[in-house]
């Protein structure tokens, strides 16, 4: 009998994605807080590579709305339902899904306290709580007034609210979009939003205008967005950058007045995206070291503050990686390997990570940024600084293909998490 090299290699190569080595070694409990791109991806990957582990996922909402593709709802390309996912498949996978609001995190005892007083502790604690809004950053903007001036920066009811306001607006109305200073979740997201709202207005309310009040001077994929706006929506979008006092300083929600250091405008519809920082749960636990975001080890995503506590996604300071669903998903896969190896007493070698963000300027007009990162030694480091995006002047065929790839990516990643 001969065993081919291929057979041997194939078996060994598949190890990291096959039933784990440590079945006999333990059945540790992993508690994950947050069922978004970081937490849901991690729960499912752990079931796959280490089925002997007990996995508990704590998530407040029974329905998760993805921020990716939610700008398409605002542009009238598809209904909110398209970006809504339930956790049934995770429960069927053997993940203990607990729908409850968390009120505190204790890194030392690796526990999460729930609003109803229950406490859930694990051998390993993973925190993927996402962002909170820094309401103090804009005078007059609060969780309450955001019901009048929606941020729609956590997808769900806020997305529908903004869509309904756009639909109800008269032709000729002024839509104001306020963009905060970085870092914020999804760097190209506001500009995709501007594009798809413009697309809706051009078709349904062509006398309307979009005024962008931007705290930033430069932004992600800027030449590509500006090229698309010029070609697809000429004369419809005006943008005031931060250096020309574009930053929104205060709002009067009742009057729809939006103020910068330079001017006041009255909007028909105002989408004011507040500045952001990590969830208060991780800040209260001291995991942000006072920085507003949590530093993590570049290989394992273990907190640099609390051993045995891992942090994923938007809440982290992840070196050069942006705050995106794609990043959180890739981080979850690396973190799963770190958890399994650490439990087995092995050290994990660094690998390479990827982030790809597609943006749509119109239904059949997409472009992308694609980055590869090395894990360490000091931080997660971007490997190529030039030529990271689709080329300016790319053909209609390229833009159509990138829009199709965006759809394909969305289907694959949401199926991985929720299908």
């Amino acid at each position, binding site marked *: 009998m001969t065993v081919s*090299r291929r057979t041997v*290699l194939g078996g060994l190569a598949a190890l*990291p994605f096959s039933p784990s080595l440590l079945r006999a070694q333990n059945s540790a409990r992993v508690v994950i807080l947050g069922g978004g791109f970081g937490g849901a991806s991690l729960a499912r990957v752990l079931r796959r590579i280490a089925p002997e582990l007990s996995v508990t996922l704590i998530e407040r909402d029974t329905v998760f709305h993805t921020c990716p593709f939610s700008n398409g709802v605002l542009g009238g390309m598809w209904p909110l339902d398209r970006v809504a996912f339930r956790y049934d498949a995770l429960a069927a996978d053997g993940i203990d899904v607990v729908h409850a609001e968390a009120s505190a995190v204790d890194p030392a005892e690796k526990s999460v306290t729930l609003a109803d007083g229950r406490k859930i502790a694990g051998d390993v604690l993973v925190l993927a709580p996402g962002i909170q809004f820094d309401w103090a950053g804009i005078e007059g903007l609060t969780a309450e007034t955001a019901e009048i001036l929606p941020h729609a920066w956590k997808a769900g009811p806020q997305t529908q609210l903004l869509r309904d306001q756009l639909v109800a607006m008269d032709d000729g109305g002024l839509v104001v979009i306020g963009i905060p200073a970085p870092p914020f979740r999804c760097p190209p997201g506001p500009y995709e939003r501007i594009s798809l709202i413009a697309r809706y207005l051009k078709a349904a309310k062509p006398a309307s205008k979009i005024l962008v009040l931007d705290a930033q001077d430069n932004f992600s994929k800027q030449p590509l967005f500006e090229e698309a706006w010029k070609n697809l929506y000429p004369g419809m979008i005006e943008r005031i950058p931060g250096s020309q006092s574009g930053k929104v300083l205060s709002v009067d929600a009742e009057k729809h007045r939006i103020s910068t250091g330079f001017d006041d405008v009255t909007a028909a519809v105002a989408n004011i995206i507040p500045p952001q920082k990590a969830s208060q749960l991780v800040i209260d636990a001291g995991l942000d070291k006072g920085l507003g975001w949590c530093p993590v080890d570049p290989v394992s995503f273990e907190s640099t503050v609390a051993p045995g506590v891992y942090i994923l996604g938007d809440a982290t300071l992840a070196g050069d990686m942006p705050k995106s669903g794609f990043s959180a998903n890739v981080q979850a*896969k690396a973190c799963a390997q770190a958890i399994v190896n650490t439990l087995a007493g092995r050290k994990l070698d660094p690998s390479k990570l990827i982030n790809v963000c597609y943006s749509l300027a119109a239904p059949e007009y997409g472009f992308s940024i694609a980055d590869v990162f090395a894990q360490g030694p000091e931080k997660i480091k971007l490997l190529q600084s030039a030529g990271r995006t689709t080329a300016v002047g790319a053909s209609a065929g390229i833009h159509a293909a990138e829009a199709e*790839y965006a759809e*394909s990516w969305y289907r694959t990643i949401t199926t*991985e998490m929720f299908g």
Partner: protein
Amino acid sequence: MKFKASAFCILASYYILAASVAIAGNGARLAEACTSCHGLEGRGGGKIPPLAGRPETELLAQMQGYQKNEPATEATIMPRILRAYDDAEIAALATYFSDMKP
């Protein structure tokens, strides 16, 4: 002498296997980042092509074309991604995905 020769062969094959395992294992780790688009099973849905079970030589040739930014057909993100990987990493990825069940 005979004993020594076979010991050498065993030792040599151990090192050859160990070296291959290191590369193949590396392929599995490197491939994790690919799965966000190409799927955990090496196949997703829609336009992004499946990779699982495709001939190793075909995958290798296609990835080398992207790596050198000389794709056989019009490309989008793959040349931008694969320029950040070296020849050994690309070979490991080709082996890993061709070994996956299609």
